[in-house]
């Protein structure tokens, strides 16, 4: 049945809400990629079987719902029992019978499955909303993820989906939609932060009968998964945003470019498109307004550079995914040479949120220049890792201490890497930095894809830069000389640095090369590739100097520069290090001080990490040889 009027839309929506009101007990099992990998599909099955066995049928109001990613993947599989909002973590199929018996049937809590807060003496927390990881978040782009069933458009409708589209089509002219986006202050969530409304306006004003809107779902940064979770967990938020954008700029064709490494995103988006078409929310004459718009999915073949907008559009056109110069904007000449608006997944999800809730609700969050909220993938050496969405302007300290629960093993914080491979490292002295586009740029990093990797004192900043250079040198398309050859040469210098072959002129050579790459490269991949290099040089220059002049790695992780030894005065011979050592290099009787046979030691540091008594220490290899 295709919806052909506002009244029909309201009726379908009301019916969906009534249907949802029948769910007196809803068991939400996270079926995001992380929880699925931990076996959540079996957990959901077990719930269905167990409810049956207890006679807790759907007609009595008992439902099992498979949702998208809740973000707290580290503790998965996650199960939330509604309406009480009880969160169970790390649920196994064998736990299901007890949950059904106690919580579903008798409203009792299964204490052993509750979340335990590592920051507060592992006290249990019963409710989803009270878990610090969630409590400090403000969700707009991810508003429905974890709550809706991504495979059911009626569930999405009951949660407000397409109300923003209805408002745009029935209450606003295209120019009114653009004005709404402009006053929301929304800027591109792909990381560059270009004002979305301004981009749309210039596409609206561009001449051309055929225009396109494109969704960039080619999230390729190591450790980033926000776009994945949005596409998998709430595909209608993206489709609705895309349709609103198409109406605003006058496009009738849309493309979603998804990397093929996100199979669940492709499945859920494909299903969502089919369901939206069936209801008349996509296709010809949307909601009976005469507006035609449809969407196609293009799967990306796994090149990082295809996340760059011009390379992405070439890839959709069936050509090699290589960037072109952007002296003429895509809003004038983009996909197939036509005016095109390309925005990131999160931006499109924000657009539908803004039209649903109004621009003021969005503007109320964030800083003067960076309005709204931003999704981040918080990973690395913090206690709580996962996907989060916060008001812009939140400080890094708040993110790491309160949401992240502090440093893992309470080791000292060294840096947080933001913005993906071409982002930078922010040191401890800037932890009170409010996170927005300008502040991160001023710290030598960037917003980028919203990746956030927390590092402790056991991270070598020279090696971190080397890691990202290696990634980028493999992912550069190789079209332009500075990026292709420059990354190759930078990587060679860094491989020398970590191997103890650094030379006095290296830092100057790195800086000259970085400057030429920033100025001379064709696209943003090459222009921003020196960021990890320059930000670590800026904030951790002493580590570079130590590698070059003292041949020492202050973090003790560059193997060629580091040896480990055991302090016999501290060692109690507990054998923990012996068990951890992969090469049997540690000798010594139980309960007697151990020693490391250097000839067999790989300097991997496993003993150092295993020791509870700080008896293992590392020293520069050179000093050891001298001694």
């Amino acid at each position, binding site marked *: 049945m295709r919806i052909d009027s506002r009244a029909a839309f309201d009726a379908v929506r009301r019916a969906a809400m009534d249907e949802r009101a029948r769910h007196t007990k809803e068991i939400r099992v996270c079926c995001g990629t992380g929880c699925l990998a931990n076996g959540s599909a079996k957990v959901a099955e077990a719930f269905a079987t167990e409810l049956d066995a207890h006679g807790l049928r759907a007609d009595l109001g008992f439902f099992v719902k498979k949702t998208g990613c809740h973000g707290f993947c580290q503790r998965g599989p996650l199960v939330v029992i509604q309406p009480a909002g009880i969160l169970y973590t790390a649920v196994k199929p064998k736990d299901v019978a007890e949950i059904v018996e106690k919580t579903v049937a008798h409203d009792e809590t299964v204490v052993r499955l509750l979340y335990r807060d590592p920051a507060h003496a592992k006290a249990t927390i019963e409710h989803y909303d009270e878990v610090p990881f969630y409590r400090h978040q403000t969700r707009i782009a991810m508003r429905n993820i974890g709550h809706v069933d991504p495979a059911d458009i009626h569930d999405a409708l009951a949660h407000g989906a397409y109300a923003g589209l209805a408002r745009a089509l029935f209450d606003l002219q295209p120019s009114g939609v653009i004005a709404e986006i402009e006053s929301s202050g929304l800027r591109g969530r792909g990381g560059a932060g270009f004002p979305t409304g301004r981009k749309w306006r210039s596409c609206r004003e561009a001449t051309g009968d055929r225009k396109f809107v494109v969704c960039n779902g080619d999230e390729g940064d190591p450790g980033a998964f926000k776009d994945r979770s949005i596409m998998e967990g709430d595909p209608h938020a993206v489709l609705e945003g895309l349709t609103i954008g198409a109406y605003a700029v006058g496009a009738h064709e849309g493309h979603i470019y998804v990397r093929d490494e996100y199979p669940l995103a492709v499945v859920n988006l494909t299903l969502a498109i089919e369901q939206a078409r069936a209801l008349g929310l996509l296709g010809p004459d949307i909601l009976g307004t005469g507006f035609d718009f449809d969407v196609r999915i293009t799967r990306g073949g796994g*090149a990082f550079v295809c996340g760059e907008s011009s390379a992405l559009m070439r890839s959709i056109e069936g050509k*090699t995914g290589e960037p072109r110069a952007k002296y003429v904007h895509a809003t004038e000449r983009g996909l197939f040479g036509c005016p095109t608006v390309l925005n990131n997944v999160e931006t499109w999800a924000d657009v539908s949120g803004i039209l649903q809730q109004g621009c003021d609700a969005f503007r109320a969050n964030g800083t003067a220049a960076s309005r709204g909220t931003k999704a981040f993938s918080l990973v690395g050496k913090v206690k709580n890792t996962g996907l989060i969405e916060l008001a812009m302007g939140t400080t890094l300290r708040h993110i790491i201490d309160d949401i992240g629960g502090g440093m893992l093993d309470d080791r000292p914080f060294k840096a947080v890497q933001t913005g993906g491979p071409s982002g930078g490292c922010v040191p401890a002295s800037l932890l009170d930095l409010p996170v927005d586009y300008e502040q991160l740029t001023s710290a030598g990093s960037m917003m980028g894809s919203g990746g956030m990797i927390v590092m402790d004192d056991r991270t070598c900043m020279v090696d971190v830069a080397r890691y990202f250079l290696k990634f980028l040198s493999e992912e550069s398309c*190789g079209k332009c000389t*500075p990026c292709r*050859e420059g*990354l190759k040469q930078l990587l060679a210098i860094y491989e020398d640095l970590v191997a103890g072959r650094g030379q006095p002129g290296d830092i100057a050579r790195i800086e000259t090369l970085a400057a030429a790459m920033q100025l001379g490269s064709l696209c943003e991949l090459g222009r921003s590739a020196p960021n990890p290099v320059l930000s670590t040089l800026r904030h951790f220059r002493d580590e570079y100097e130590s590698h070059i002049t003292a041949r020492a790695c202050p973090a003790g992780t560059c193997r060629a520069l580091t040896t480990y030894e055991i302090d016999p005065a501290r060692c109690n011979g507990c054998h923990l290090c012996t068990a951890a050592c992969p090469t049997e290099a540690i000798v010594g009787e139980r309960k007697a001080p151990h020693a490391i046979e250097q000839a067999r030691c790989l300097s991997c540091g496993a003993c150092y990490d295993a020791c509870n008594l700080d008896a293992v220490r590392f020293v520069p290899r050179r000093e050891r040889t001298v001694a």
Partner: protein
Amino acid sequence: MAHLTVDGQSVRVRDGANLLEAVRASGAVVPTLCHHPALEPWGGCRLCVVDITREGWNGRRRMVVACLYPAEDGLTVETSTERVLATRRVVLDLLLARCPDTPLIQRLAREHGLTHTSYRTSAEPTDCILCGLCTRACDQIGVSAIASAGRGAGREVAPPFHEPPPACIGCLACAEVCPTGHIRYEASGDRRSIWGKTFEMVHCPQCGDGHITREQAAFERERHGVPDDDVAMCDACKRARAAAMFVSLGAADGLS
């Protein structure tokens, strides 16, 4: 017409021109490696970087490649500011590390004050500068027998799967357009070999010269509808034929 200032000199270029045309019209010398007048500008080598500014930019300068940037009216172009020269020098320095034995690169590097590279010389020196002229010429002809393969430092020009390319017609456009002589071919009498594929030649009915491969002759006939006689005849004989026709027409009109 667009009016621009290049290195203080006023120039005019046709509408739709790019900055490289304006720069060359001014007489300024900007090196290029991936540019060819018969092919679409590409912007890969990055040697033709220039600084631009204009009224209203409040003195802000932007570094762009001249081959791709449109020659907009009112632009002020500087072809050799300090940062432009520094960037160009690094690009040549990098190419010299890649192609240490290539005379063209050695010469350009020398002109920019570089006699040896500051970087690590490639373990496998090559003459290929990845300017993309060969692959773009092949595309332009409509054959697309070769392409760039791989990415990053592993990028190379190659036929599909490194096998003799089925689509290749042996026209030699790739070798002709290659600025460093990296693309090799062999031609002897009845045969021509390139990209591991050997071609038989069609002989000119007039002089007997084997000037075109069978595959290219077929391509000209089928793709462009060139008549059989015209395909088979070599360029020199075609010119002679045209000249003779011209002379005889003139004689008929009493002009000779």
